[in-house]
């Protein structure tokens, strides 16, 4: 196999929570040496949240952290102690990319702002993934993942007809910022390889999410109109919905109800759907014969489809409809995704031995590269697992210096 696309690229990763770690996870997939700078004085919140095996909390035991930090190294520093900031700066000098998602101004206050870092490493590429961006009247506002979805406008468009606005994903703007940020870093790397120039990238998660809403934003700029919330329906296509099935099971005190999503995009699709439901005449009835008629009589149509789906399991409905060439999919809870043979056959899953949680099932790289390969090469790091290794092998500190810094509390 050829070298990985980002082999030899080092990332000083000051990010935490979700947007930033999702960004640097992609860089690790592509072969970058991503070194997360953490601190035991304020560990990443994802280390403190469930899920934990056996419901037993532990700073290295969270599935949340362990998912989004696969393949990275961890270095712990306490900036309040002498020597720690110097280590951070030496790491930047040995890196190609610096990432952070602190609120505006935090890196500057630490002495790790872009202007400062440029003096250390003139061609450094730096990105800040903040909620509001570095400029503008609200740039100091605090942002949390789940609040970015309503702020972006996506919530006002998402929800059942006549109901209040709703969440999409949970912190959907976070991974969205992460993937766009990773893309931008590769663009900047491409520019640097051609010209030798680094640069600073200012990302507002709010803006990044608005680029996903052109149909609504342009309805407003063209017509002064906002599309109303309409559940799972589409403005032009019917049927386009999530339908109930007969199967359900209990898990942890909650009834897990199973649903199946079905879309028939045109007349041919609808004819196949009608036949698969054992009711081929449906496609010839005037009320359902054309896209416009189906859209107009969507309530009736949904009632008929619901009656059919309610008599079988979601998986059975999916199988029958896909065999007939209709777009249908089980509305999958995590368990169903985890057990999907398709993902298994594509080697999507990662099973690596982790010192504290053993072998767990984790999501891998969502694409394949035929020549360079790539993907998860190591489990998520324990907190501070690579502190000594990075200090001695990457930054050239002697063992006695490391001991002195540890004594002084700088490596906490």
């Amino acid at each position, binding site marked *: 196999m050829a070298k990985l*696309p980002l082999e030899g690229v080092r990332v000083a990763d000051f990010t935490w929570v979700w947007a930033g770690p*999702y960004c640097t996870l992609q860089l690790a997939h592509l072969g970058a040496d991503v070194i997360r700078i953490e601190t035991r004085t304020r560990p990443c919140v994802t280390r403190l949240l*469930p*899920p934990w095996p056996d419901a037993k909390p532990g700073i290295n035991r969270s*599935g*949340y952290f362990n998912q989004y930090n696969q393949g990275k190294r961890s270095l712990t520093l306490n900036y309040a102690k002498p020597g720690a900031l110097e280590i951070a700066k030496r790491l930047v000098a040995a890196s190609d990319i610096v990432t952070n998602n602190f609120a505006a101004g935090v890196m500057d206050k630490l002495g790790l702002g872009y202007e400062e870092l440029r003096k250390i490493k003139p061609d450094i590429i730096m990105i800040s993934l903040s909620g509001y961006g570095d400029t503008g009247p609200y740039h100091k506002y605090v*942002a*949390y993942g789940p*609040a970015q979805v309503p702020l972006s*406008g*996506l*919530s006002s468009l998402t929800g059942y007809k006549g109901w*209040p606005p709703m*969440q999409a*994903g*949970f912190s959907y703007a976070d991974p969205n910022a992460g*993937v*766009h940020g990773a*893309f*931008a870093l590769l*663009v*900047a790397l491409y*520019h640097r390889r051609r010209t030798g120039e*680094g*640069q600073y*990238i*200012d*990302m507002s998660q709010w*803006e*990044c999410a608005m680029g996903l*809403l052109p*149909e609504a*934003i*342009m309805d*407003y*700029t*063209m017509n002064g109109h*906002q599309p109303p919330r309409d559940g*799972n329906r589409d403005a032009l296509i019917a049927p386009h*919905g*999530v339908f*109930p099935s007969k199967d359900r099971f209990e898990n942890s005190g*909650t009834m897990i109800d199973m649903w199946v*999503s079905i879309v028939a995009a045109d007349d041919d699709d609808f004819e196949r759907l009608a036949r698969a439901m054992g009711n081929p005449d449906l496609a010839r009835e005037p009320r359902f014969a054309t896209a416009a008629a189906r859209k107009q009589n969507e309530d009736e149509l949904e009632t008929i489809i619901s009656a059919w789906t309610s008599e079988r399991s979601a998986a059975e409905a999916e199988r029958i409809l*896909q065999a007939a060439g209709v*777009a249908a*999919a089980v*509305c*999958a*809870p*995590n368990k169903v*995704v985890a057990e999907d043979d398709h*993902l298994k056959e*594509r080697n999507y899953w990662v099973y690596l031995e982790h010192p504290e949680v053993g072998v*767990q*099932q984790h*999501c891998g790289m*969502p*694409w*394949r590269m035929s020549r360079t390969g790539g993907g998860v090469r190591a489990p998520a790091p324990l907190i501070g697992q690579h502190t000594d290794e990075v200090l001695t092998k990457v930054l050239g500190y002697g063992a006695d210096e490391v001991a002195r810094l540890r004594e002084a509390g700088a490596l906490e």
Partner: protein
Amino acid sequence: MAGALAGLKVVELGGMVSAPYAAKLLADVGAEVIKIERPGAGDPARRRGPFPGNAPHPEKSGLYLYLNANKLGTTLDVSRPEGFALLERLVSDADVLLHNLTPPEMDRIGLSFERLSRVNPRLVMTSITPWGTTGPKRNWRAADLTLWSASGICYVNGAGAQYPEMPPLKAFGQQSGFQGGAHGALATMGAVLAQARDGEGQHVDVSIYESLTSQMELFFEFWPYMKMVASRLGQRPIQPLEVMECADGYIYVCCVEEHQWRNFVELMGNPEWAGEEIFSDRLKRAANWDALKVFLEDWIKQQTVLDLYKKAQARRVPFAPVSTMGDLLNSEHLKHRGFFVEIAHPVAGTYKYPGAPLKYGRTPWEIRRPAPTLGQHNHEVFGARLGLGANRIDELHRAGVI
């Protein structure tokens, strides 16, 4: 100054959102993108709208116009041998081919990396497909809704435990396509960097399903780690994290850290109920949400959105308005940052569009030209670049190949 990707040659064989969005991300930072559409009908996004005055017109669809600015537009029927031969000539000189034909469509017209890499061994070919080009579901049909649904994201959204009859809920729009496109652009850039280093191309197989499954936040790992199913009907781990109604609109009430809740209580004037033991930490507030909700609703419905937002933020409490499209277009913050960009199109007219997803400090993000009209650049691309004479182009046009 030229964009970071100036000189990078991309051919896009895409429709609707995923591949066109990936190509847009590349085009907006300087890549040259030649877009190929089906003769006659063109990209289905041309029929999606929104349209000015709600009057459908293939050159006036907002979705198409947004996704395809900065591209050169051609028409070519690649399912015909003459059409495929022209595609091969286009990619022989390109760095990247980005497409979102499904695997059955690829099989039907004979599109494969093996075939195109014989024409151009440096070629990066990125396939953005619903399920990926391998595996038992490779030929499965899909739509935005069914992918969102299969990935597991849908299942955690919707109404809560009080409304089990309400179905899992998708997000507005074409989010599966956008995520497939963003991950596709990222993976493509990885391959482009390797191409520049090694002088060799490769096939990049992007699965939209996997791109979405990768985004389940902490919800996915609840199954492997604890054998727990995360559901829209389950209890939130902490509260308040809810959309709530003000006098003039909706606000997102968000207290993650304990100090944020304390500051919010102070902002409400320290009401007596807030001192109750059952609301004393974020876990208890989640367990007793039904009670807490009543008190909060009562107070919040008397507030106005912008006022409460600013007062909360002044106390470092991360509330946010539930923005409408009008709020976004009128936002003083977004105006100051110059987010929206105006694009003049010869047929559709001049409108504001969403602008740069992020700001590069040195290299430009810019709109250099509006989206092409159908086949606008056929002569430029097939004539000036591939050297076909005007007569031959007319002939192919009459035959329905271009």
